[in-house]
């Protein structure tokens, strides 16, 4: 075995010698379109930095999260750059698992980052991850169907209006559902939507003493509203629909409305994939009559450096390149302005070319400006995070509760039963984690 190890080592040494002492960065990333595009463009970076090689580990979101978390928590030290959400960044930064990004360079223009996004990635004023793209949530709707039904979408609609409109547009014979919403269980799937919905209904996950709030009237109201709406105006099989499924449904013209991440706006208005590209309108995430809250959905995919990386300098170089304005220009020149990663920089939204190429630019910025993850709901809360709760326990808890709510949409459980079970399981988990004494 020793001999084999030696031989393998010798082989890889020879291979490395070929690159003239190049440093190899191992980058873990998620397999969505923008990230794949970045991999394709990496040759531009390595051309400019011949002493740095890049190896990609591309994984599906959930597998990626598992892999990266295990590695970083058990100090496996296998990655030099990891792609993580704004959910993880503050939690990991507090554990000192991430290196602060203080060497991004003069030209990086850190003040150009959208304040809401930057705030979510900073701990004690230090930036721990650089945003690659960011998103909030908004309504995407079919202008033609609204016109046909004699409806006009206000810029800032209420849930009451959305409910009414969705039921009116629904045409089961033509296979058109009034509204498509996430129903697939998962903390990043249905719970993202349901949490934002409940925020806008004035509800909250926990009170100031971390007591779960599923027994409160706001949750009952929001969940009932969601369940009724999906029953009356949702697509069949809604309980297994996540972002991907709804995206396809909308692109095929089977949804009157879809409330989801703003990043979807570029997909539904891309005529290559979408049959309804020229008929899409956008509006702010709905609020409830009398409650000034638009859900506070805010997500970003970010690049960060694990504290265990031995190649921090090269890693910062890469991050600075991948999240810079120059990268945006590079994508624009190769793939067009509509395809640049959205939602991270103010300058992008002041760019006339971008605004011209992307009809969703202004509504996206409006949605992002409306989101505040430090104050997700009108009642006081002990946590941050809009469509999630930024505590380590949320992944497991959110998924369990997501399963319970998914059963409601599948028609296998009542709203009351699901809420009772959610309250019990949340109390149990929070007690175990020591939040509830």
């Amino acid at each position, binding site marked *: 075995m020793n001999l084999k190890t030696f031989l393998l080592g010798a082989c890889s040494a020879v291979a490395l010698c070929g690159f003239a002492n190049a440093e190899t960065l191992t980058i873990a990333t998620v397999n969505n*379109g923008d990230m794949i595009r970045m991999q394709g463009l990496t040759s531009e970076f390595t051309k400019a930095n011949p002493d740095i090689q890049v190896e990609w580990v*591309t994984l599906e979101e959930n597998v990626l999260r598992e892999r990266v978390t*295990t590695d970083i928590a058990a100090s496996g030290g*296998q990655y030099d750059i990891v792609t993580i959400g704004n959910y993880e960044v503050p939690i990991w930064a507090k554990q000192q698992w991430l290196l602060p990004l203080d060497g991004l360079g003069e030209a990086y223009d850190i003040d150009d980052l959208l304040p809401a996004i930057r705030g979510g990635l900073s701990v004690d004023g230090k930036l721990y991850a650089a945003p690659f793209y960011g998103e909030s949530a908004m309504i995407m709707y079919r202008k033609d169907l609204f016109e046909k039904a004699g409806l006009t979408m206000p810029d800032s609609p209420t849930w009451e209006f959305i409910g009414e409109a969705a039921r009116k547009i629904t045409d089961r014979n033509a296979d058109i559902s009034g509204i498509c919403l996430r129903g697939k269980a998962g903390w990043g799937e249905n719970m993202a939507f349901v949490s934002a919905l409940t925020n806008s209904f004035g509800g909250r996950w926990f009170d100031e003493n971390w007591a779960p709030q599923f027994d409160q009237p706001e949750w009952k109201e929001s969940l009932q509203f969601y369940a009724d709406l999906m029953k009356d105006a949702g697509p069949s099989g809604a309980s297994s629909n996540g972002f991907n499924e709804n995206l396809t449904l909308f692109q095929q013209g089977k949804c009157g409305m879809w409330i989801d991440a703003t990043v979807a706006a570029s997909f539904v208005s891309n005529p290559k994939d979408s049959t309804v590209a020229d008929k899409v309108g956008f509006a702010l995430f709905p609020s409830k009559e009398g409650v000034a809250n638009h859900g506070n959905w805010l997500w970003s995919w970010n690049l960060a450096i694990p504290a265990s990386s031995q190649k921090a300098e090269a890693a910062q170089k890469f991050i600075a390149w991948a999240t810079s304005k120059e990268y945006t220009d590079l994508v624009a020149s190769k793939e067009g302005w509509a395809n640049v990663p959205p939602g991270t920089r103010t300058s992008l939204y002041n760019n006339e070319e971008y605004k011209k190429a992307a009809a969703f630019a202004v509504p996206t910025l409006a949605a992002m400006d409306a989101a505040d993850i430090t104050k997700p709901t009108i009642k006081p809360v002990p946590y941050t995070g809009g469509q999630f709760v930024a505590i380590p326990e949320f992944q497991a808890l959110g998924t369990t509760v997501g399963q319970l709510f998914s059963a409601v949409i599948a028609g296998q459980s009542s709203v009351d039963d699901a809420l009772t079970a959610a309250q019990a399981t949340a109390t149990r988990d929070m007690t175990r984690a020591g939040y509830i004494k």
Partner: protein
Amino acid sequence: MARTVSRGSKIGWTIAAWLVALLIFFPILYAFITSLKTEPEAIAGFSLIPSGTFENYVTVQTQRDYFKPFMNSVVLSIGSTILALLFAIPAAWSMAFSPTKRTKDILMWMLSTKMMPAVAVLIPIFILFRNFGLLDTRIGLTVMLTLINLPIVVWMLYTYFREIPGEILEAARMDGASLWKEIVYVLTPMAVPGIASTLLLNIILAWNEAFWTIQLTTTNAAPLTAFIASFSSPQGLFWAKLSAASTMAIAPILILGWFSQKQLVRGLTFGAVK
């Protein structure tokens, strides 16, 4: 002795068997067909006639190199199989030819080592791997896969060896053959079919192992299971591309399986015949 079969009943059985076979094979076939469709076609409703584009394969290959994970899959599955056989052949041999009261218990105990849920031991194993510097190495993963499949390998070989009649050994011993000669000239030729099918089965099991191969690798040792994990659920339903990636991941082992079907069948009995 030979039964005469009427042509009519033969055709009847043929139709029935083909129907069942196609039904079972259909999901694989449909995935392959879908891989030759364009993305809109892939979700446009049932159709067995694709437009015949190879674009998905090209896209998959440009997104993520296929050959490195493919080579890793080959090295890992063959390496772990050979290693497992090195351990298992002597063990199975001695169990088959010098059985004791305990033999059966040892066999059952070996199988029971497979009952620990992998997810529960992941963190301890991960930490062990980290401490020995085995993360993302082919050697580490080869050892892992060897350990996982060793019980099955021992059992298969044991049941196969047991079918070898003891008299042959006796005869060889009478002729004054040494133990070494006994193994090389008498046992090995008789055992080859059994070893061959054990080898094949183990390669298949190792090729398809999708927990440890994803959890303990990043780039250097990542096999095709990790390749697949980079194509499942991206943003949007890219079923045609997913089908292409799936086809690429399963095709090599499927083809190996088809070609070696006869050898595989012979040893898959686990001593069940008799």
